[in-house]
C-alpha cells in the first residue's frame, strides 16, 4: 500500500507541476513540488489556480483540486503571456 501511495503522490506531483507550467506560468525549472511544504512558488501558483477556477484557496492538493485538473479543458493558458 505505501508503495501505491508513493506512486500516486508522484503522479499528482507531476500532474500539478505540468498543469501550473502549462496554464499558470510556473517557470519550467522550478524545483519539484513537495507536498508537505507550506510556502514556495508552487504553493503560490496552486493558490492562484484555485482562485481562478473557483475552488477553495488552500494551497494544498485536495481532491477537488486534483479532480479539476483532470477535467478536459482548453489548451490556452489561464494567466500570463
Amino acid at each position, binding site marked *: 500500500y505505501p508503495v501505491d501511495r508513493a506512486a500516486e503522490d508522484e503522479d499528482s506531483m507531476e500532474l500539478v507541476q505540468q498543469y501550473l507550467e502549462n*496554464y499558470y506560468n510556473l517557470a519550467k525549472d522550478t524545483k519539484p513540488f513537495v507536498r508537505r511544504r507550506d510556502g514556495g512558488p508552487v504553493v503560490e501558483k496552486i493558490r492562484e489556480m484555485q482562485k*481562478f*477556477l473557483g475552488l477553495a484557496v488552500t494551497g494544498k492538493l485536495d481532491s477537488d483540486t486534483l479532480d479539476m485538473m483532470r477535467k*478536459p*479543458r*482548453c*489548451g*490556452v493558458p*489561464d494567466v500570463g503571456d
Partner: protein
Amino acid sequence: FTTFPGMPKWRKTHLTYRIMNYTLDLPRDAVDSAIEEALNVWKEVTPLTFSRTDEGEADIKISFAVRDHGDFNPFDGPGNVLGHAYPPGSGINGDAHFDDDELWTRDTSGTNLFLVAAHELGHSLGLFHSADPRALMYPVYNTLIDLARFRLSQDDVNGIQSLYGPPPVSPDDPVAPTESVPSGPETPAACDPTLSFDAISTLRGEILFFKDRHFWRKSLRTLEPGFFLISSFWPSLPSGLDAAYEEISKDIVFIFKGDQFWAIRGTEVQAGYPKGIHTLGFPATVGKIDAALFDKEKKKTYFFVGDKYWRFDEKRQSMEPGFPKEIAEDFPGVDPKVDAAFEMFGFYYFFSGSSQLEFDPNARQVTHALKSRSWLNC
C-alpha cells in the same frame, strides 16, 4: 473575463474563416454547421460578420490535428486538452486547432464540437479565459451543459463587447417596441406548464415562438425572452398562425395561416403576398399546414400536415416528388399532429401541445423529450 495581454483584436469587422480539414467523427455538414453556429454566437453580440472561404488565406483557419502539429503546442491524446486557439493577428494568429484524439459529437455523448468551437473562436477574436464558471470562456469543459439552453453569459458579452462594442441596429432590423406587452388575463403565460405554440421560426439567430396574438422572441445572448404583440412588428399579419419558417440563405421568414402565406424580411412584409399555399405545390385537399421547418444544410423545407409531411426544394423552388410521406416513417418517435417545429444546432425540435421532442436527423432518432416552454427560461 480577460483579454490577451496587449489586448490584440481585429482591426476590421468582416472576417474570413476557412475549415482546413475535417474530423472523421462527424459528417462534413455537421462540422460546417457547428462552426457556423459557433461564429453566430459572437456575431449576435458584436458588429462582427464572418464569411467562409474554401481556398487561400483566411483570418481564422480551423483545423483538426493530433499530437505534434507544427505549432510547438502538441496535443496530448484523448482527454485533457481539447483544443487551443491564437489571438487576432496574421499567420497562425486567429487560428483554432481541435484535438482529433477527442470524439467530436453533435450532442454531449462525446465532446460537443459546437461548444468547444464557440470557446476557441472566442480566443480567435481576442478573449482570454474567464474565471466565471458560467462563462463560455471558462477554461474547463462543462460536460453537464444543456445545449438546448446554451447562451453566452453576461461576462462573455461584456468581454467581447469590450473589444468590439455592441451590434449595430440595422435599419431593417425589427426594432423592439419600447416595452414588452404587459401580461394580463388574455395574454399567454410563458411558464404555464400546459403552454403550447401555434408556430415557431428562427429569425437571424433568434427564435420566435408564436401564440395567439403574441410571440416570444428568444435570443441566445439573453436569459429572458421578449414578449410582444405580432401586430407591433407586422401590423398586416393575422394572429393565431399555423406555421412559420426562416429561409436563412434568403433572410426571409415565411408565415402561414389557412391557405395563405406571407414573406417577411425584418419588419417588412414583402410585396406580392399573401400567396396561396397551393402555389407551393400542395394538392387541393390540403386546406392548411400544421408546421414547417427549414434545414439549412439540405436547403429543404419540411411541411407537416396531419400525420403526413411534404419536402420542398428551396433551390429548385418546387415540391419534391414522392411526397407526402408518413411522418412516422422518417421521424420515428415524432407523433402527429405537429403544432410547430424549427431546426437549430443541427437538431430538429418538434412541438405538440405542451411537449417538445429534440430529433437528430442524422441518427434519425429522438434525443430529448422536453416541455414546450423549455426555451423560455422557466
